[in-house]
């Protein structure tokens, strides 16, 4: 009984922390000044946010097949997330999107 209570608590803390990171990413997307810095902000949502939420769900589940699927999802997010981000960033770089420097106006 108490073991499942501990699991619930751990799961809750992880889910809340993940949610906080997801929101931080969204706020950063709005607040940061240019394309590249915004990608950094969304990176938090992508990595820490999604990772902690999946980890929290992992502590929540009791069946093996669900756990295996969650781990697979985590693995595929780690593989596909940065690839897509890099594709965006490289396209922007090649297209000559201006890199914002400290002191410039936000665009």
């Amino acid at each position, binding site marked *: 009984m108490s073991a499942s209570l501990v699991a619930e608590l751990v799961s809750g803390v992880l889910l809340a922390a993940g949610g906080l990171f997801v929101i*931080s990413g969204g706020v950063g997307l709005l607040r940061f000044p240019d394309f590249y810095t915004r990608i950094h902000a969304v990176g938090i949502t992508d*990595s820490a*946010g999604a990772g902690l939420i999946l980890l929290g769900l992992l502590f929540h589940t009791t069946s093996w097949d669900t756990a295996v699927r969650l781990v697979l999802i985590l693995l595929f997010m780690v593989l596909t997330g*940065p690839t897509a981000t890099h594709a965006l960033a490289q396209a922007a770089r090649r297209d000559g999107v201006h890199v914002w420097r400290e002191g410039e106006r936000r665009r």
Partner: protein
Amino acid sequence: MVWMLRLTLPLAGFWLVLSGHYTFLLLSLGALTLVIVTWIAWRTDTVDRAGVALHLSPRLPLYLLWLAKEVFLASVAVSRQVWSLRPALRPAVDLTPVGDMSELSQVIYANSITLTPGTLSLTVDDNGVEVHSLKASDIGELQAGEMHGRVRRLEVR
């Protein structure tokens, strides 16, 4: 024909694990999907490179744990910038060398850089990875080479 098995068997296993519903309708739909995916892979001629990911080092789990720690610390740092009243952003772009890494290691290295919030890989070639970061010291840390060394040690000889 060997490539076909090397592609379809893992895909079939993957589909079965993800599905979990073993009725005739769903199994036949899965088989149909497999045929279409294999046909696309054959048409686009991307099959040879698909096998690379299977030569993975036994050190990979350890590396992923270390990377998870780095990602978490970096996420906290960037989140603090997000919520601070006046974010102190000093973006920098610079090159971090890849040395004589194999192509696969270059991919792992560049993707690890991107996965870590605060650093972003822009272009990758034999000269190195061009990195955009929220502060110059992040690139300095990459150039110091801890992540580079860890990725390098993943290579199987």
